[in-house]
């Protein structure tokens, strides 16, 4: 599987076929998820309609963490196997992950204002997500600050692997420290502490976010490959 996609033109061919379907699926999932989340699911008995922020906030948070793990994995693949597309994938995924993190922070503070009474609280979860955002920014800045792009990719891959230490800290910060942010209610060992009427729209939205990530990632990788091609054509023309 990994070796199969080592050939960029094979990858591009597959992307061309997949992309239209992915776009349609993403839009479908978003429409269904938003409809279920905003109109179909009940309001919370404590938080009222504010709880609907959850349908954006939680999936974005999951994707922000997952995307960082993805970047680190791709970084490891590019360092160990010198896989040509892995480095590109990591580079293309970083801005997407950073925007998921921004979405988490903005929706979180919109949610925090009515419930906690403050836009921002220096609580363990919030601070560690902010650190995750800075890790993303460092990754992006590092991968673009060398004349030789492959050196940028390698340096940022090492940074991603080192920064991976932060992921468990973010994930478990609400369990380890007693904080204002509520502990995990879905990813725990016993049954999820959330009613199916809220869980189902949440899962649909999570799938929508995931599909969105894949779609945008493929588009970004495609455009990276194209710009590389343009660069090499330019060099040929000069010669």
């Amino acid at each position, binding site marked *: 599987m990994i070796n199969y996609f080592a050939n960029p033109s094979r990858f591009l061919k597959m992307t061309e076929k997949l992309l239209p379907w992915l776009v349609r699926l993403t839009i479908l999932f978003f429409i269904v998820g938003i409809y279920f989340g905003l109109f179909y699911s009940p309001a919370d008995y404590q938080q009222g309609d504010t709880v609907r922020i959850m349908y954006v906030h939680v999936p974005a948070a999951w994707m922000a963490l997952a995307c960082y793990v993805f970047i680190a994995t791709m970084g490891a693949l590019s*360092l160990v196997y010198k896989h040509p597309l892995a480095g590109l994938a990591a580079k293309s995924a970083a801005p997407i992950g950073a925007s998921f993190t921004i979405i988490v922070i903005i929706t979180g503070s919109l949610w925090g204002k009515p419930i906690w009474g403050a836009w921002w609280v220096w609580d363990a979860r919030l601070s560690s997500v902010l*650190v995750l955002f*800075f*890790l993303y*920014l*460092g990754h992006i*800045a*590092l991968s673009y*600050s*060398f*004349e030789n792009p492959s*050196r940028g990719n*390698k*340096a940022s891959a*090492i*940074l991603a*692997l*080192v*920064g991976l*230490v*932060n992921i468990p*800290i973010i994930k478990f910060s609400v369990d380890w420290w007693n904080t204002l942010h509520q502990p995990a209610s879905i990813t725990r060992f016993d049954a999820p502490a959330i009613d199916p009427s809220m869980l189902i729209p949440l899962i649909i939205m999570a799938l929508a976010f995931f599909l969105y990530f894949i779609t945008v990632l493929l588009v970004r990788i495609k455009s990276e490959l194209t710009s590389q091609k343009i660069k090499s054509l330019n060099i040929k023309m000069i010669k």
Partner: protein
Amino acid sequence: MNYLGLVIIKDVKLALQGVSDTGMTFVFLLLACTLFQFSIGPDQALLMKVGGGVIWVVALLATILSLERLFITDFEDGTLEQYFLSPVSLVFFAIAKAISHWLTTGLLVIISAPLIAVLYNLPSEIFLPLVLSMFIGTPILSLIGTLGAALTLGASRSGVLMPLIILPLYVPVLIFGSLVIYNAMYGHSYNSLLMVLIGLLLITSALAPWATAYALRQAIE
């Protein structure tokens, strides 16, 4: 071993020459602390409360100051390539660089920490935990810092890029380091926090030099 010693002695000698890096870092430390007092105001009780955190933040910034020049001179005059060609592994070179950075910066931070504590009117009970936590914490800062310096070596804007990369990685040291001081200040036990710091030191010293060596190899190629 011999090789390690030679690299360290060379670097320390260079750092102490003329208007030395070490001297300027010391001035920076005091200056930064003074700035905090200007901005917060001369409220003794408040200064005492923030003092423990300020010491650590200033220590972090001071270690970053001298990092930019850690590899750049060796990189530009070709010394780094000679190290690369020598039969000794670059990992030893990375370790030597981290040690020499610690000797010229970390040690200075440790020595000046009690002085800053006096400036902030911190109680005398915290001096021992402060110095202990600095002794364990500053080598971690040097190790991560060498990695950051190696990663950004040859980058177009390494001066602004490096803090952006390193500071998020410094966060765990900052959290546990200042917790040690606050726990000591309010009479709680701080042994477990020191253990956590030691654990962090062991992990970073096991992994950082290898990552640094790998990053250096990328920079040379």
